């Protein structure tokens, strides 16, 4: 008993007091910024491993970006990654970073039904489905519930059964072999329900986008309520994205 009390005392306070204002130090790669000015745009397009960089006008699509940072290492005068970890939004247009853009990424509040905030604002239970995920986004989702990040303090929890859930959160690029199970899990959630994509692989297929082993057709049928970019997303990206959506 006394041993336990000593351990608890020595452990001290380890939780992050406020995940909304918490800062992740560099060299963490969060929201990128593009400086105006001439550069070899074609070279940048060619080096991006996931085709996230496009020209006319020059832009980076965070739905595709795998946050490897190659563009910033090779063209530091053009692209840099800030440590802003708030990347999630419900509007895919807002995931596209253009030249000179330094504004933060947030949800478009006009797109969120009032019912969502009313019903899930203080209690959100999600069922996570891994559909080809590499276990990194899953790792960070689990971390989001640990004693440091403690997303349970906002009433956000991951539950075992889709029947108990208010929505599905998908990780991974959605493989053919998992597509049917994902659909069944989604159908089992009672309405109103959320559908959330977590991690670059889920958002666009990421590095697997051109694989014939994927079947992303479910995305044609189900509207997406939140896109959480990252490879994998930092727990603070996940928590702040969910909070922006529901509270």
């Amino acid at each position, binding site marked *: 008993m006394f041993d*336990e009390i*000593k*351990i608890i005392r*020595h*452990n001290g306070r*380890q939780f992050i007091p406020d995940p909304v204002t918490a800062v*992740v*130090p*560099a*060299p*963490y*790669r969060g929201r990128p910024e593009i400086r105006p000015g001439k550069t070899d745009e074609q070279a940048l397009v060619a*080096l991006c*491993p*996931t085709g996230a960089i496009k020209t006319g006008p020059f832009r980076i699509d965070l739905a595709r970006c795998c*946050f*490897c*940072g*190659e563009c910033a*290492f090779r063209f530091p005068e053009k692209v840099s*990654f800030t440590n802003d970890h708030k990347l999630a939004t419900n509007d895919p247009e807002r995931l596209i970073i253009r030249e000179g853009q330094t504004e933060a990424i947030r949800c478009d509040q006009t797109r969120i039904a009032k019912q969502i905030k009313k019903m899930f604002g203080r209690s959100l239970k999600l*069922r*996570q*489905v*891994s559909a*080809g*995920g590499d*276990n*990194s*986004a*899953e*790792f*960070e989702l*689990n*971390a989001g519930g*640990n*004693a*440091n990040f403690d997303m349970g303090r906002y009433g956000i929890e*991951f539950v075992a*059964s*889709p029947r108990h859930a208010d929505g599905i959160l998908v990780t*991974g*690029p959605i*493989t*053919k*072999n*998992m597509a049917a*199970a994902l659909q069944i899990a989604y159908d089992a959630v009672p309405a109103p329900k959320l559908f959330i994509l977590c991690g670059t*692989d889920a958002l666009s297929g*990421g*590095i*697997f986008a*051109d*694989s*014939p*082993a*994927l079947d992303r057709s479910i995305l044609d049928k189900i509207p997406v309520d939140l896109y959480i970019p990252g*490879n*994998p997303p*930092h727990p603070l990206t996940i928590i702040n994205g969910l909070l922006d959506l529901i509270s």
Partner: protein
Amino acid sequence: MKTDHKKYLIISNSDSVRLDAIPVLPYADFTAAVETLLLKPETHCVNYFAFPDHDGLKFIICIADDLQKELCVLSHKQDASGGRELASLTPRIPALHLFEREIHENFGVFFTGHPWLKPLRYAQERADQAADMNAYPFYRIDSEELHEVSVGPVHAGIIEPGQFRFICNGENVLHLEIQLGYQHRGIERLMLKKDGLLQRTILAESIAGDTAVGHSLAFAQVMESLAGIPLSRQLAIERAIALELERIAIHIGDIAALCTDIAYALGANIFGILRTGIINYTQSWCGNRLGKGMVRVGGTYHPFNETLKKNLLDALSSFEKMFVELSHRAYKLPSVENRFDDIGTLSEQQARTIGAVGMVARTTGIPRDIRMSHPFAGFKYYPYEPVVLSKGDVFSRFLLRRKEIKRSMAWIRDVLSHETFDEASERPVTLASLAPDSFCISLTEGWRGEICHCAVTGPSGDLRFYKVKDPSLHNWKALELSLRNLEISDFPINNKSYDLSYCGFDL
């Protein structure tokens, strides 16, 4: 590089050789040579695969000899005209069962005498496109007394998918069979399709996100060997440090998860918090908590330096203080021991039969560790002595993690006390021209066990075939076997004590 009686080629870890230097034997001679090689207790098969070669298939097997620190490579070839039927080696060498199943699934080769030639992962490029994921031929026992429990593919919790089928007698499990493949993304095919070095590196990092360093290191070693890129001592050592940090982080996370599964809240929370310190250190080094971005071919964007060295020593000492205090308590609690002791025992014999690797082998008394037997990266300069336990139960796997964390910390400190790190590390290369018509095998010891990447190049140095093997390929069988005659309620702690990879198996 030498050949023994012209039956097989002997090479070392991360060697590249001309494809035509690998002896091609008639199948009967091939099987005889493989059987002879695998009779010795210090050998095991690290990879066996087939790839299209002109109008037929070429099969290459790689057998590691841990005492001689050698890799024996031999092959056989089958023409399309000769039919696609071969006598299975599995009845005599059960450890090969998965490799033969994989070759059967991908190329339609029929291994006669194989006891369970079932689909492996329902790969996109499988020979039998009609094979249906939802109609996997599970074993069944027709009996009035027995019942089956089906779990998955979606499991309770934030976890990857797989289908588990238990045949139970009351509460006791008679047999467990695991069907995987849900995570199949077609990694090996994509490796050929992607032409950029960086694209391939990102792909290697995504084979299993919790082993990003282990797999990307195995990949980088293949590319550097085939392209003849020399590596500095400093880079080799940095990579080994990153690999050991990955091991410490995942091991401590698994210790926490095992505590969670037995409702030991103090252990679950504080061991979990300890992991945060380590992965945040990794992030302060390379920008990513899982070490993505750390390993690049030929160099690094994140050179280790004296500041990072000081911070690492600080991070390790604050980690160690709490880790030692808590593990002194947690590992001696009767309620913890009682729950883990004698549960899910895998015998040494079983481990040898299925060709178990890594942690699972080392908990049954088999000293199988690539860091020692086929040293790579920094382990060439600073030898690593593996931790070996003998009981093979859940408690052994719980304990091995604690001991490996201590050993890894000691290894890192030893390295840091002898090395100085100047910032002049090489930058990554962006283009590499690979040696034509060659074969390369690269092994690393990730936290789960040995990772093996093999590559075959074509006449113009193009990548013709790429083979990835995660340690989970061997070790899932260990979970199935060790669950026999246990209560089904012991499945969660048993499963967690292995913490095997679904995506690493499914590719």
